[in-house]
Structure formats: C-alpha cells, structure tokens
C-alpha cells in the first residue's frame, strides 16, 4: 500500500456544533461556490476522504448523498462522484441559500407577530446602514459565473 496522492483533508472540528456530515456538505458546497472545484472535477473516493479527514466512511457517504440530493455533485455507479455539470452551479447554490435565509427570516417574524409592512421597513433601514458601511459595489460584478 504505497501512499496514494493524499487528498488535502477538509477542515472538520469536533468543537463545531453541526454534525460532521453537515460540516462536510457545507465545506464541499463552499468549495464549489468558490470555484475551487470546477464542474466535472472528480471528488475523492468516500474511503479516501474519510481516511484523510479522519472521519468514518458512513459520515462521508451520508454527506455525499446529501450533496447529490442538493444537486451539487453527481455520482456515476462504480466511477465515484464529480461536481455537477449544471451551468451557473455556483450562482444557483447562492440563490438557494438566499431562499433558505428568507424562509428563516419569515419564520422569525411570525414568531414576533410582525406584519409584512413592518418587515419591509426594517429591511430598508438595514439596507441603508449597510450601504454606508460598505463601498458601493457595482451590482453586475456578483459571483463569477
């Protein structure tokens, strides 16, 4: 067993509250979003990633299943997993994340019993404050395709 090209291990920590497989999912999604891994890039095998990141095989398997359900990766039987070939994958993932944050925002507002108009007002205030603290960015830049 010569040591194969060792996969760079992911940054997983036991002090993080999220379960291990969730940490793997988030990190791989982040790598795809940041275009570290371009579409079609072959992911390390489940056993290889488990060994180098020192987690159990089943945890990585669970993470890969979640990633596949989320459409981030595609798994071809017997040949391992690759980053999904979907166009604009990073942008699509960001939009899904935005959607998730909006849902959480609404749930929280419901608990506070806020009306939608009140919510709009708070949003505009936050946007104004945000504009002063950050230099105006040209909306068209956005994340790279």
């Amino acid at each position, binding site marked *: *067993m010569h040591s*194969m090209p060792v996969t760079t291990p992911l940054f997983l920590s*036991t002090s993080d*509250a999220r*379960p*291990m*497989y969730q940490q793997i999912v988030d990190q791989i999604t982040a790598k795809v979003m940041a275009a570290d891994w371009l579409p079609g890039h072959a992911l390390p095998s489940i*056993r*290889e990633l*488990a*060994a*180098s990141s*020192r*987690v*159990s*095989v*089943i*945890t990585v398997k*669970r993470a890969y299943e979640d990633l596949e359900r989320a459409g981030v990766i595609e798994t071809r039987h017997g040949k391992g997993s690759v980053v999904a070939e979907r166009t604009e994958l990073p942008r699509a993932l960001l939009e899904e994340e935005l959607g998730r944050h909006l849902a959480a925002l609404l749930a929280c507002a419901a608990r506070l019993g806020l009306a939608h108009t009140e919510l709009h007002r708070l949003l505009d205030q936050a946007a104004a404050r945000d504009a002063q603290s950050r230099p105006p960015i040209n909306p068209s830049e956005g994340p790279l395709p």
Partner: protein
Amino acid sequence: MTAAFTLSGIAKRYPHFTLQDVSLQLPEGQIMGLVGVNGAGKTTLLRLLTGLVRADAGAVEVLGQCMPEGQVAAKREIGFASEDMRLYRGQSLHWHMELIRRIYPGWDAAYAAELVRRFDLRPQQIVAGFSHGQRVKALLLLCLARRPRLLLLDEPTTGLDPVARLEVLEALADVLRDERRSVLFSSHNTQDIEQLADSISFLHQGRLLASADKEAFLDRWRRVVCQGAGMNGVAAWPEIASARANGSLFELKVRHWEADLPARLNAAGLAVQRVDPMALEDIFVTTVRAGEPA
C-alpha cells in the same frame, strides 16, 4: 458482504457478571465502536472474539474461523491490543518488533518505520522507560505494522494526552483505506467513536442495548426544549427517553425523532423552542439512565 465477525446468541456466565444473548455482526471494511461503562462486558466480548474464552452458549465466528477452535488461524489476521496487555519491561521496542516480524509474514517494515516516526517512539529504548502513552502507541504499532484484517482494540485512547490521541486516531484512519480491513474498538471516550465509527454498539450490564449504523443512530436522537403549562403525560410517550422540567421550560430527549413530533407536542400544549442533535455521550448517558433498549 462477508462479515469480519459474527456473534450469534452468545452467553457467558461468571460468578458476578453474565453476558447474555449477544448477537452482533461487523461487516468487512467497517469500524464498529463498542460503547459501555466499565464492567459492561466489553473485555469479555473481545476475549470471546480472540478465542481466549469459550462462550457458554451461542456461536462465535471470526474471519471465517469458528472460535475458539480456529483461534490460531484467526489470530494470524487479528491485531488485538488491550488495556491490560504489557510488553516485556526488560526489552527494547526493537526487540518486540523483531519478535512480531518473525511471527507474522505480513509485517511491513516500511510502515513500521513510518509509524515509529509518527508516534515519536525510540525503538532502542527499553520498554520499562516508556510512559503510559508510549506503551499504548507501541502496542498499537506492533498490531498495525502487520496489517491485520481485523483490529480489536480495547480502549486504545484511554489515558492518552490529546496529541497522542490524535496520532492514534490518524493511525486508525489509515486502516480505512483498505476496504478489506475492519476495526472494533471499545472505548468510553465517546468522542473517538463518534468521529471514527461506522456503526455503534451499546453494551450495558452484559446486554446489547443497541447496535446500528452511526449516522442513522445519531439522527434518531434529538434534544427538544419547549415551553408550556405542564408536562401532562408527554414524558410517558415511548419515543421520549428522558424529560426534565424547570418552571415552564421542559427539556425532552427524544429517542425516535419524527418530523411530526413538534406538531404533536404543540397539540399537547408544549411550544417547541429549539431542537438540537445530541452528542453520542449524551445519548449514551441517557440510554443507560433510561435502562430500556435505545
């Protein structure tokens, strides 16, 4: 899927302790964490697997050999390191490596040297001068360097400093690369098991409380904090493992989490505030306290 070992209906009676009706299987290529308090029967189980003890009832099959008759053939492919095992104090680690190399044809000298470097051990040093951590790592080295197909480790990380513990876990992770090799390691340091094990078996007072794959197992348990007028009978629900009240706040530890549970709790007058996953340690303590099968 061939099994690394299969225990079916095992019983072993001692004057003050009985291991009863244990059935357990470890598929090849997996790591199983054996969790249990001291005296739960972990050591007896490991001794059954290495054929050092004969079961009073049931059958033990390890790597295709029925034990204890086939113990010699099986032990050629088993790496067994236990807490109560000591090396020869008067001899050096190198002497022990030579002894093992001559007994096991599968000894991999290069891997042994790499482990010596990674474990920061000095082969020429006499074992009497080793610290507890060095002794545990030396024993593990002697097991790992011959690449056995089944590793049986009794509390491999107990009493180790964090650095040594990480080195041991890294060495165990190496085993993952070969899908023909399997590991059973018992520990009451549940963090290691949570990190490395594929399946978990709970042993308590000689009985197997649970044995399931880790992710599914962890997924079933939740800690729910809710607010409401009173408990009114929720504590008795079968899926609730433990319930504690503090004024109007209630903490429920759920054994079988279902998506519809928050709705049913609301119906019972309890508003769910937060739902968190539970660490294995918490699960283990709750299970032992609750006493029913997990």
